[in-house]
């Protein structure tokens, strides 16, 4: 089951690593960890249209709050058909539409908000969700955030607001890989009991393994079934930073470091080329 989605995810991981390697900068760890979720959302779960328009009326919308995992997102958008996969080779290069962190300025199809400075995405997603309600648009808003990002105060302003104002057409997904730049999240600044915290803020809380496609699909379905019941929904998504490449897993060191030639070759050996490299 879902062999196809797993195959796409393998290609997305290859794309992300090749993009980052080519420009010798970027964030491979979170990109690999979140590849399965992004593939599931864009290739299976969300209703969306490659003929991009900013308002996205009648479509499910996705917001990336942890903008540094842009390489995986760009790959998913390109592989789905938002733009030519050849453009992936321009990541982080001068005049590219594929900025180091997502940007609307260069008008890359599929991007609706700039992100990179952390903690802002859920607020934006609430705004877009509220616009959908005002427009009587039944579609949903999805927002991915990092876990280290939850240390930002604005996240909890947004968490309080969404529950109090019953923003129930919103699904937030937390990439709970437990790692951030300076080390394990628990050592840098522990998040405590995340499930209890989100419950206390008034959200419906689901858990899933973000690196198991079946679990991702089942949990997203369950989350959608929880929407429109007067509460916002959050999925605490356990992932492995660097998933799919043995030497990138189990450490925070690959958060924001590009692989060298040898490391790239070793990584690509572990990730089947399923859709043809760009």
């Amino acid at each position, binding site marked *: 089951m879902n062999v196809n989605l797993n195959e796409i995810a393998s290609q997305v991981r290859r794309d992300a690593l090749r993009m980052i390697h080519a420009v010798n900068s970027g964030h491979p760890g979170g990109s690999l960890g979140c590849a399965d979720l992004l593939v599931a959302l864009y290739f299976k779960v969300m209703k969306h249209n490659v003929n991009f328009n900013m308002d996205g*009326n009648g479509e499910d919308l996705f917001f990336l709050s942890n903008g540094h995992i842009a390489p995986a997102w760009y790959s998913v958008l390109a592989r789905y058909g938002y733009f030519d996969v050849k453009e992936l080779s321009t990541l982080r290069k001068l005049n590219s539409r594929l900025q180091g962190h997502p940007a609307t300025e260069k008008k890359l199809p599929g991007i609706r*908000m700039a992100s990179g400075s952390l903690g*802002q*995405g859920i*607020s934006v997603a609430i705004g877009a969700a*509220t616009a959908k309600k005002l427009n009587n648009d039944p579609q949903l808003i999805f927002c991915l955030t990092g876990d280290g990002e939850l240390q930002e105060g604005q996240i909890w*302003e947004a968490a309080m*607001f969404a529950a*109090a104002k019953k923003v129930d057409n919103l699904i937030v997904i937390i990439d709970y890989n437990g790692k951030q730049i300076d080390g394990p999240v628990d050592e840098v600044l522990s998040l405590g009991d995340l499930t209890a915290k989100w419950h206390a803020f008034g959200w419906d809380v689901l858990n899933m393994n973000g690196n198991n496609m079946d679990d991702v699909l089942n949990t997203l379905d369950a989350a959608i079934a929880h929407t429109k019941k007067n509460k916002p929904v959050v999925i605490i998504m356990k992932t492995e930073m660097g998933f799919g490449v043995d030497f990138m897993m189990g450490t925070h060191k690959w958060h924001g470091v590009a692989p060298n030639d040898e490391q790239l070759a070793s990584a690509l050996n572990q990730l089947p080329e399923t859709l043809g490299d760009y």
Partner: protein
Amino acid sequence: MKTYEILSKKDTRSGFGEGLYEAAVKNKNVVALCADLIGSLKMNAFVKEFPDRFIQTGIAEANMIGIAAGLTIGGKIPFAGTFANFATGRVYDQIRQSVAYAGKNVKICASHAGLTLGEDGATHQILEDIGLMKMLPNMYVINTCDFNQTKAATLAIADYVGPVYLRFGRPVVPNFIPENMPFEIGKGIVLNEGRDVSIFATGHLVWKAIEAGHILATQGIDAEIINLHTIKPLDEKRVLSSVSKTSCAVIAEEHQLFGGLGESIASLCAASRPVPMEFVAVRDVFGQSGTPEELMVKYRLDTPDIVSAALKVITRKQ
């Protein structure tokens, strides 16, 4: 010197409240957000008439700016209101990334700007907001001078697509701009044509500039008085044509010298038409508690300060 009749005495923030209400009547996509200051921002009429289009965020300005940015995705035109201090400095990065860089059609509406907030003191008297906002690419910056202009500006920015910072204030001040004068973003208003000195003023200093013009006229000085309600984009043509005629300028604003309108005009003129200038602005200090009138005197933002700046700059002409 042309005489302006005081039509009434009103606060600029009430002009915003009326403008917002009218904009909402005209366009169903106009929505409003506020961070626990509905009464201060005069948003009551909007809230009462359009409760479904009003979003109370509580005391959480960063979240408010983010929500406003998100609302534009789906075609809404959000007016986010709070005190100028909390609308800018407190949420600079949210505005920078989610509004300005992202190019979102958010209207940041800031009341109680400057010293004339009065007794609450320096924690609330932001004098740096124009500078903060004008430095952001894509951001328009407007500082209105009276009730009628604020109302007209509120309606005008609802029709303009793009990020705008609209700055107004707390106190009751003379309302003298004709009620039906259309507000043209980026176009200065020549309140008096003159030959001897250009006085460029914005916000609450515009009426004081008119008062100064009358005093200067009694001394035989013919001042050109221009209201630059839009600080960005600056009406460069108007500024340069005026100083080409008068060969000197005074710039008056309720803001720090650093980052203000004066700085914008100085850099424009330095590059294109250098002339002597004097600045009526706050000089690198914080304000303090006091009545608005006391503070404007104390920090030299009053009518006599404009007069003496004009007299001084005229003596500096070649």
